[in-house]
């Protein structure tokens, strides 16, 4: 089979869809309290991991700007609670720091 072919694309799609459906199929069965506690922690661990790796990246200067942007995003999230406002604040801080020639 050709790595660039439609067959490979179909296989990859099948794998992706099967995994996504399987999670629901397994989760629809009764789960133990311990498993429930595990699943309850999944969003916390997943999002903290993704956020941390996206913020701490690309050297000290880039990381510093992203930490400042994250601080602005976090502050607005906790104060206002609106996703769009939090992203706007973070992007504004990051862009201003870049325009100031820090990055």
């Amino acid at each position, binding site marked *: 089979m*050709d*790595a*660039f072919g439609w067959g*490979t*694309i*179909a*296989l*990859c*799609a099948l*794998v*992706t*869809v099967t*995994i*996504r*459906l399987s*999670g*629901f*199929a*397994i*989760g*629809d069965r009764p789960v*133990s*309290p*311990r498993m*429930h*506690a*595990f*699943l*309850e*922690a*999944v*969003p*916390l*661990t*997943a*999002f*903290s*991991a*993704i*956020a*941390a*790796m*996206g*913020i701490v990246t690309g050297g000290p200067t880039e990381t510093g700007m*992203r930490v400042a*942007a994250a601080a602005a*995003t*976090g502050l607005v*999230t*906790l104060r206002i*609670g*609106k*996703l*769009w*406002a939090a*992203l706007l604040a*973070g*992007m504004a801080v*990051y862009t201003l720091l*870049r325009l100031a020639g820090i990055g």
Partner: protein
Amino acid sequence: MADRMAGEIPMADPATSMTPAEETVPPGTVRDGFLAVLPLWIGVAPFSVAFALLARDTGYSAAKTIGLSAFVFAGSAQLAIVDLAGRGATVPVIVLTVFLLNLRHLLYGMTLATTLPRPRRVPTWLVAPIVTDESFGVTIRAMRAGRGSDRFLLGASASLYACWVPCTILGALLSSRIPNTDHLHLDVIFPLSFLAILLPLIRGRDDLAVALGGAALALLLRPLIGPTNAVLATILLGSAAAALLRGGDRA
């Protein structure tokens, strides 16, 4: 109208897992979910175009590039597919990589199936194949505010799809006319999004410890096993540790 603006989800009472308004606030609709994800389009659109340009440079036709976005619909997996194909990887290696990159979705699906309010109105086969990191996160966030529902999840997931696929089409068909946006560093919106989704989920010291521990573990593991594996390992190890420490007392 104002309370229906994108991302305007009432915050839960941080002291409890239930918002006081939960009994009166109606569950989120498809439209609510769709609008909640709109702010993330700023980062998703250029990412999708960039994927299309990379696929073109690797040797994918426009039709197959669009097919990858339409049928696989998984950003990191799609990038891995074109990268590996471009470097001459075999089909089993590509498929195995896609499997590993998507394993976290098994846990997302389990979490959603366990926590989404019942009865669910949307067929699983319709919503599950298009759930993404972002739509999962926004829906979990809405659930903590008493507004999460399978319809909200469908709207959020469809919103990402409605941005991702057309932008791939744009990138694949008009690649030579699209300006390069790399210098704008729009990718920074992804970690900021997940931070904004994460913070309202932290309801006490236990949650804070789990989140900080997860961040530290991911950063520790990244140079050892790569970023994607680090995310999966952090979810498994961090969530297992949290479950053991809590002893299932919050279930």
